[in-house]
């Protein structure tokens, strides 16, 4: 067909993007893996290869394992609560929790309000929650004193000053900010489920819970699966929230170290051990890919056509 000018168009349109993408993204990823096999500190122009030493060192690094463990804990807690609440609210808004075919009053309003924290910059959420948890003049302290409790006696040193609570306190902020997003995702999925299926379920005497478990959930399962992978990978990548809420956890470990903050500190404050940090980055990459594959395998269910 229109051969003339076709290659000119293809080249003009794809090359600029590809150049930018190659220079900053692809070459960074490739060099990240390359540097992980060296002891580079950024000061010498040459790379000295040390084989798998960085990876062997990671295996014996207690701080690394602790931050991996923290990531795993967040990986379980954040998706369970976020997706659980998102599913609950979405199904309550869609059909008043099924059985009832009328939409719940105020549904649009809830959608707009619940979604809003998702667009608030993460740094702002981190700072806001630092003040929510503050022992002097904090929102949580204010609520507790209404029932005659003192935050510092309930949680010594406050949630962000106590290594046993800080991770949970950060997870709460993460859940707070993302429930609405996933609720909107599930709302659009549930809106596409035909009403007849719920009418049939109601006819058979299914209540809210049963029609949710046996009608809604199986039909939107692929969305739940996608949402879980998004959230899980996001949790591995989470940096800003942890960094801000642990008083820039980049400076030291305040009990909330995750892989990303430990990597940052290794690269940019602990004598710039770039090689070692790059090995952490490579492991994180492998972890993300493995996680996505495993999730797809484990949560594979029959696909329902409707």
């Amino acid at each position: 067909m229109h051969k003339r000018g076709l290659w000119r168009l293809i080249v003009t349109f794809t090359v600029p993007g590809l150049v930018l993408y190659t220079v900053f993204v692809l070459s960074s990823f490739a060099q990240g893996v390359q540097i992980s096999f060296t002891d580079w500190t950024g000061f010498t122009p040459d790379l000295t290869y040390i084989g798998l030493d960085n990876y062997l060192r990671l295996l014996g690094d207690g701080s690394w394992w602790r931050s991996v463990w923290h990531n795993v804990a967040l990986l379980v807690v954040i998706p369970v609560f976020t997706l659980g609440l998102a599913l609950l609210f979405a199904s309550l808004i869609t059909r008043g929790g099924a059985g009832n075919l009328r939409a719940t009053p105020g549904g649009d309003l809830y959608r707009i309000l619940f979604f809003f924290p998702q667009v608030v910059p993460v740094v702002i959420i981190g700072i806001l929650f630092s003040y929510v948890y503050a022992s002097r003049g904090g929102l949580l302290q204010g609520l507790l004193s209404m029932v005659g409790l003192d935050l510092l006696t309930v949680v010594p040193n406050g949630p962000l000053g106590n290594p046993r609570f800080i991770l949970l306190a950060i997870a709460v902020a993460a859940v707070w900010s993302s429930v609405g997003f996933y609720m909107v995702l599930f709302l659009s999925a549930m809106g596409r489920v035909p009403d007849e299926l719920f009418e049939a379920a109601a006819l058979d005497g299914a209540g809210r819970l049963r029609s949710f478990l046996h009608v809604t959930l199986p039909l939107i399962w692929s969305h739940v699966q996608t949402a879980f992978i998004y959230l899980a990978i996001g949790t591995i990548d989470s940096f800003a929230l942890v960094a801000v809420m642990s008083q820039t956890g980049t400076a030291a470990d305040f009990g909330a170290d995750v892989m990303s903050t430990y990597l940052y500190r290794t690269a940019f404050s602990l004598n710039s051990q770039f090689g070692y940090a790059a090995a952490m980055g490579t492991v994180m990459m492998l972890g993300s890919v493995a996680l996505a594959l495993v999730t797809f395998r484990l949560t594979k269910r029959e696909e329902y056509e409707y």
Partner: protein
Amino acid sequence: MSTQPLMTDRPAPDPRPATPAHRVPKGSRPSRSSRSSRVAALIPQLFLVPWALVVAVPLVWMLMSSLKTNVEIYNSPFGPPSELRVGVYVDAWTESNISAFFLNTVVVVAGGVGLTMLLAVMTAYVMAKYPFRGSRALYYLYLAGMTFPVFLAIVPLVKIVQSLGLFATPVGLILVYAAFSLPFSVFFLTAFFRSLPEELSEAAFIDGAGHFGVFFRIMLPLARPGLISIAVFNFLGQWNQYLIPVVLNPQQDEERSNYVLSQGLAALALGENYETSPTSMAQLFAGLLISMVPVLIVYILFQRQVQQGLTAGALK
């Protein structure tokens, strides 16, 4: 942002009797089932209202605290401000240097989103409409960038940006933002261009239009809804960005005048521990709110966009 507690909008329960016959289990008396179903209609609100409070209260509390002195915040966390201290916002803008952070962010995000859109639209269009030898490979190259975590790239990125002489410059941030926003944008827009009808462009070809003419005069206007969605997505993501500026844009002078908002606010929050003035906490909150204004504006527009997109999808 409206400070009206949104809960007051809770609509009254629907007065119509719940009649759908299929909901009434056989044998139950109509009057009783009607009352119990009205009670049942309230159950969703029992869960939704508390979460609405959980979402709204911290935000409203931040707004209120931005008008109070430190002492007022300490003594009565929920009390209203004793006077309307709008001056706090002026102080935040000038003294706390929010103005510089804000301007830097606007420049970087405008450049970043603009460049992302330009490059992504071109790449996606060709990949969707002119599959060529190697377009499949290109597809997988961009897929890789979407799957890998940015932390793998962060160390070499410093080296690359330094060697280009772009360290701690707005141009450096713009290029890096755009490069990392490309994969997802290309994917989204490729799918979008594929869904557009062929008839119009074929008619234009018959009328003698060239490839570039078809792109600019036919395809771009058609793709508008998709372009707006992905532009909004990139705007929010880049306005939000924290890791990349922290690594590539470190402090250059005493006033941190090269910082973007996320860095500047994080630094202010840390310094706040030292209580620099009687309204230092309010200034920080005011700074948070100022930096949320563009996001809020976009969010309000975005709501409409989402609804348009949904109806467009339903009509197809």
